[in-house]
């Protein structure tokens, strides 16, 4: 459980985020398959990490589908969550 052979899970080929399979700390280094990522924030298990640089307003792609957009530029290795992304349609923050 606590020592997975993979630290992150990519759910689609086009995705620009991955799901963390362990709690990640600042400075951790992920080297898995084609990925080489330096972790920039503390990211809890189950949360998302950027695997590509994402510009403001660019789509967040998970499962190969657009699940929302960035409301600020996001760097590779950054925590991707409600502080820097928003759903394209109604979401808690917009209501």
């Amino acid at each position, binding site marked *: 459980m606590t020592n997975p052979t993979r630290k992150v899970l990519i759910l689609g080929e086009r995705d620009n985020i991955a799901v963390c399979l362990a709690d990640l700390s600042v400075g951790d280094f992920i080297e898995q398959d084609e990925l080489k990522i330096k972790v920039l924030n503390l990211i809890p298990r189950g949360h998302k990490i950027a695997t590509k640089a994402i510009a403001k307003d660019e789509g967040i792609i998970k*499962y190969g589908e657009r699940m929302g957009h960035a409301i600020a530029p996001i760097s590779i290795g950054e925590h991707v969550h409600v502080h820097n992304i928003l759903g394209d349609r109604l979401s808690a923050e917009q209501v």
Partner: protein
Amino acid sequence: MSAPLKAYKRANGAWGLRNQVLILPLHSALSSTARAIADNSDGAVAISHDWSGEKDNDLARIIFTLSGYASNPNIFATIFLSIGNPEEEQIIKGAQALGLTRFSNLLLPEIGSMEKLQQQALTIANGYVKEASAEVRVDAPWSAIVLGLECGGSDALSGITANPALGVASDRLVELGASSVLGETTEILGAEHLLAARAIDPAVGKKIVEMVARYEDSINYEGIDIRGAQPSRGNIEGGLSTLEEKSLGAAKKAGNAPFTGTLEFGEIPKVAGLYFMDTPGHDIEQLAGFGAGHINVVVFTSGRGTPTGSAIMPTIKVSTNTPMYESIPDLIDLDAGTIADGIETLAEVGDRIFDEIVHVANGQLTKAERGGHHEFALSRMYNTVVR
């Protein structure tokens, strides 16, 4: 090349993956009698329900559900237990129109006593069971599989383990020519535009969006705004950021294949492909809708675990996390929690689910079947008004 499957061929061209003899009470008061007959028989199955012939706004939905269920291709023969309401005849005629060829109808007022009814039903049931066991499976094409996709008791891992892994298996089956049906309108709310974009033509996409809007209107009618509070605080703590993300986690049971069409609750798909069926979020009601829609095998992903099974459809249980799988091994067929632990990939677990579906389609019993879990519930849209 040998055929991928062996199944029971029905007169109307449909395929059965099982050869059940079903005892179906057409009035709730005959439910325990139906169970007793099945329990005493050589292998017949029964369901119970709570409809007592009320003629309210749900009448058409109930008749449609029971007709569809009674004629599911996994059934060799159905024994109806009737009390004499005119709707009972309608249900039986409906089942015949949908392909049921072998059946008996036992009318309590004609037979005159519960004891005689039970005895007669038991004799008939054992006769059918004997005939059914003499029937052999024959080579069947991939289109023989009509898979139902279901989830219940979801957890934070559902959307990254069991659901997308099931999607891998569903995609493989659809690609080969089988059918797969996604349900649970509640769960795709917020991702309907993404599913609609995968429709084979704009009319199908429009219908998916309309079905969700129709559901949403009925919820708003009850004074609940379901989108406003999504994702919930617990979801956000777990890492989900948007409503689309949450709904995609459920909808990914249907993988990435294009949607061939939409189905009303309990409607039977006409050509092979991936479908969306408008079903309620309640697992057992949805399972009844799947049975009525002639789905013949179900995969059920769960985070909390559940004994749920069906009298007529083999139901394969997949856990989203390993601790749950290990805690109730007699209920769960496969574990997808290995994905979250980084041990297996989505593709690997997806392939295991695919293989399990094929084995179960060919006759391997699921844990729910071995445990004799035969759940059924009618789905209603309105409050019952007795007239």
